[in-house]
């Protein structure tokens, strides 16, 4: 589809670290929604004479990520100054890591269908975020406004190896990486809000292995934008090359509106960042004991966990993947399944991925906000499994548990949903159903026996789901034959 050209893709992912304070000062890093310049101090506003102090927690989160991505972590690392001028960079340099990052040479395995793909990780390094520049109009004048709340927020950059990859593979990689970062609790995975940001480098390799200039695409704030922009670039660059033209090495942005990449308006000069070691910070000494401790706190990664859900609980691969997509959901499943082992795990998986996720979706709640304690879900499913209530009554109970937070048995008692298995009451009920549906009775007797299903349904309906469907069916069959 690209003719003789093969796309080579490299990704740069910036992820804000979930620390309470900023990378080099004590300011709160939870600035979202705060008025401009209210989360700043002398350090993160770059005032003369202010000095950085490394946030130890940010280093831990960076190391945790490097370990999870199978990187080599050095004994000693250091920070460097990356020099460039822009108003949202208050010191005129960004404290980053150049030649001694906290991790290098790792990989991430992820799955597309049955295929497991391994994408190499070049490096993981720590740095500080910049302020945020907004170009706007004030009193009819074009102005640029800078908000320094974001300045100095801990940022981790993950750079992948350039590999021959298709857009879908890149999308699934970022999706898997996002999942890993969220599992580790190092990042909230919010591409839309920019706490996780993706830039891609894409070039095409020709039929004889000749390499063409690469294009960087920035501002990709959704997985869809990532995939679409790559597809667009492969097509665009392929068309240029096929037409005998050359690809210009440049930075482009993804325009959501036009569904295409457009050249970014940047000043045309070569960047020379003039990196040199940050003299205000002593080298980072990384002790094996700290790495061992971090490894001990490392949660099971999503792909491993998904595999275990299949082997340990007998779940379908589909259910296992849905449940492990987010760590809180997977944790929820395991806690519920452990609460009452008499209910088969696949029943928990059915209910969680079905009705519970539907309710979460309707309420737009995140997985960590499930208002039903896992033990309460276990109790409900046990009531259904033992035949105390019917499955359809169970759905009503679940809805109410979700809104009221009450326990299953309380709702069942109050709404008298316990299944009626007592034959006297069901005797009357089935008589009424047969009397009310002479047509179906007639059909049944003429040999169309599957109308029994509809008659059971009628009985369940008039009992408001309380009748035991198996007993009703037995009674109806006996009466009809």
């Amino acid at each position, binding site marked *: 589809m690209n003719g003789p050209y093969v796309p080579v893709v490299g990704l740069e992912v910036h992820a804000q670290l979930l620390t309470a304070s900023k990378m080099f000062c004590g300011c709160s890093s939870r600035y979202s929604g705060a008025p401009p310049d209210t989360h700043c101090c002398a350090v993160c506003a770059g005032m003369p*004479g202010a000095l950085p102090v490394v946030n130890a927690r940010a280093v831990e989160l960076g190391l945790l990520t490097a370990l999870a991505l199978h990187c080599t972590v050095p004994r000693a690392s250091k920070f460097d100054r990356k020099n460039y001028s822009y108003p949202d960079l208050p*010191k005129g340099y960004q404290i980053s890591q150049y030649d001694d990052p906290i991790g290098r040479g790792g990989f991430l395995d992820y799955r597309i269908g049955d295929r497991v793909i391994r994408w190499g990780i070049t490096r993981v390094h720590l740095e500080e975020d910049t302020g945020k520049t907004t170009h706007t109009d004030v009193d009819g004048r074009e102005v640029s406004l800078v908000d320094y709340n974001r300045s100095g927020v801990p940022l981790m950059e993950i750079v992948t190896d350039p590999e021959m990859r298709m857009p879908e593979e890149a999308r699934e990689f970022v999706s898997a990486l996002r999942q890993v970062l969220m599992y580790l609790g190092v990042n909230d995975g919010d591409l839309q809000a920019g706490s996780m940001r993706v830039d891609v480098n894409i070039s095409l390799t020709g039929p004889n292995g000749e390499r063409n200039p690469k294009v960087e695409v920035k501002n990709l704030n959704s997985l869809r934008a990532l995939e679409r922009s790559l597809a667009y670039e492969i097509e665009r660059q392929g068309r240029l090359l096929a037409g005998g033209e050359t690809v210009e090495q440049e930075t482009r942005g993804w325009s959501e509106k036009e569904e295409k990449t457009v050249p970014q308006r940047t000043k045309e000069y070569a960047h020379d960042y003039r990196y040199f070691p940050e*003299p*205000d*910070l002593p080298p980072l000494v990384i002790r094996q004991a700290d790495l061992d401790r971090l490894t001990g706190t490392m949660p099971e990664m999503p792909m491993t966990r998904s595999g275990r859900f299949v082997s340990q609980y007998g779940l379908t691969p589909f259910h296992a993947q849905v449940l492990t997509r987010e760590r809180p959901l997977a944790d929820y499943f395991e806690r519920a399944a452990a609460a009452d082992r008499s209910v088969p795990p696949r029943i928990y998986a059915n209910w969680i991925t079905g009705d519970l996720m539907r309710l979460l979706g309707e309420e737009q709640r995140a997985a960590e906000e499930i208002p039903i304690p896992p033990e309460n879900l276990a109790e409900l499913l046990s009531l259904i499994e033992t035949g105390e209530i019917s499955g359809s009554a169970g759905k009503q109970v679940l809805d109410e548990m979700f809104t009221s937070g009450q326990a299953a048995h309380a709702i069942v008692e109050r709404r008298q949903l316990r299944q009626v298995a007592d034959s006297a009451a069901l005797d009357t009920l089935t008589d009424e159903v047969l009397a009310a549906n002479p047509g179906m009775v007639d059909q049944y007797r003429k040999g169309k026996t599957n109308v029994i299903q509809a008659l059971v349904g009628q009985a369940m309906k008039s009992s408001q789901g309380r009748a035991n469907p198996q007993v009703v069916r037995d009674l109806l069959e006996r009466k009809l034959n």
Partner: protein
Amino acid sequence: MIDLTSLTLSGARGLLDRREISSVELTQAHLDRIDRLEPQLNAYIRVTGDIALAQAVRADEAMRRGEAGELAGIPMALKDILSTVGVPTTCGSRILENYVPQYNATVVDRLAASGAVVLGKTNMDEFAMGSSNENSAFGPVHNPWCLERVPGGSSGGSATAVASSEAVYALGTDTGGSIRQPAALTGTVGLKPTYGRVSRYGLVAFASSLDQIGPITRTVADAAAVLGVIAGPDPRDSTALNAPVPDYSAALTGDIRGLRVGIPREYFGDGLDSEVRVVVERAIEVLQSLGARAVPISLPSSEHALSTYYVISPAEAMANLARYDGVRYGLSLPGDDIWSMYALTREAGFGAEVKRRIILGTYVLSAGYYDAYYRKAQQVRTLVRRDFDAAFGEVDVIVGPTTPTPAFPIGAKVDDPLQMYLNDVYTVPINMAGITAVSVPAGLASGLPVGVQIIGRALDEETILRVGDAFERETGHNLLRPPMTAEVSA
């Protein structure tokens, strides 16, 4: 009636403690003297008389309650590169002419906690870049020993204020000699502590891996007392050393018998003025007469230290000065776009020497030149450090001249940066190695002060102060005052 402005720190301490004088009297006497002398000296960029008198009143109250710190009530001056909340901190530059810090440097907080009275902010070479104080946007400082001559730099204002008794003591900063060189040229004591001994938080950075704050005083004992207050770990400066602060004053025993004094061959070469050589050699004889043993040593890498310094310090300065862009504070000249605003602001805001070093720093870090300059310089820096390590295996202190010449005439070297840079040839290696040194008055050469430099191991300020104090007690060279001091007092 004693002249209150002739008092040393320890002298004033005694009188204040015995209630013979008040801090308000002492402070007022210094403010009066500043009024009389400043038209000739220009040592201060800003005198904060009202603040000083308010601090003096508080210090007197604290002393009455018996809660006074070691520096309580004693008027001093701060180099205008140390951040002071509410008081402009210009760094001797147009670009920060109207910049008012919102926080205090750690040393300023420590002085305040000790009850110090701050008379004002002293003149300096712009962003501490210079050895003559001619690079100040606020005019040159005049040496009180000879008004036509420079006081040295970059802490020329601080040294001049102390030499002329416009302050009892002052704080300066030393990146390549900026405390010791002006101390030598003005006949005062200047101490550069070990890198990391004093917190740099709030010191507006010139070259972060070299900058260090230290006292300029009229006696070694005063320097010891001030260092004891300002030294120590600081959670806000990751490069501040976590070592306990010894009692420096207790180290001044006057006994240097058996001490091994290294005399580095390289410090007595061709560039050394013959009169200065005589003064320094005499100083070494004095130390020997006090029981110290002179040991010839060699510091072979020191000849490369200066050129290396002019790679590393501009590189760091280039980055440290990038923040002065007119966006958030300081001078700001509007342009057509952000790039022209940067250019106009920095063109107007920085002086020639600062621009020269920014260009130099940008060059040595540029793609393709990094290995040849910056990396090479770091390697040489390691060699310089090893030289000192090796020397200190054999000797306890190293003694030599602080500067190659006494104070030179204003204007003599402004057009020749390389000649100007040579002023720091004996002081720069100490910053490169991160160790400590003190310049102590050693007498006069043709009527101008000469300093002797006593260099010590990292964190061994106690030994160099002990040597300096013993020398001072024996010679009394520190008691020599500039001629104009006598005229004014009379």
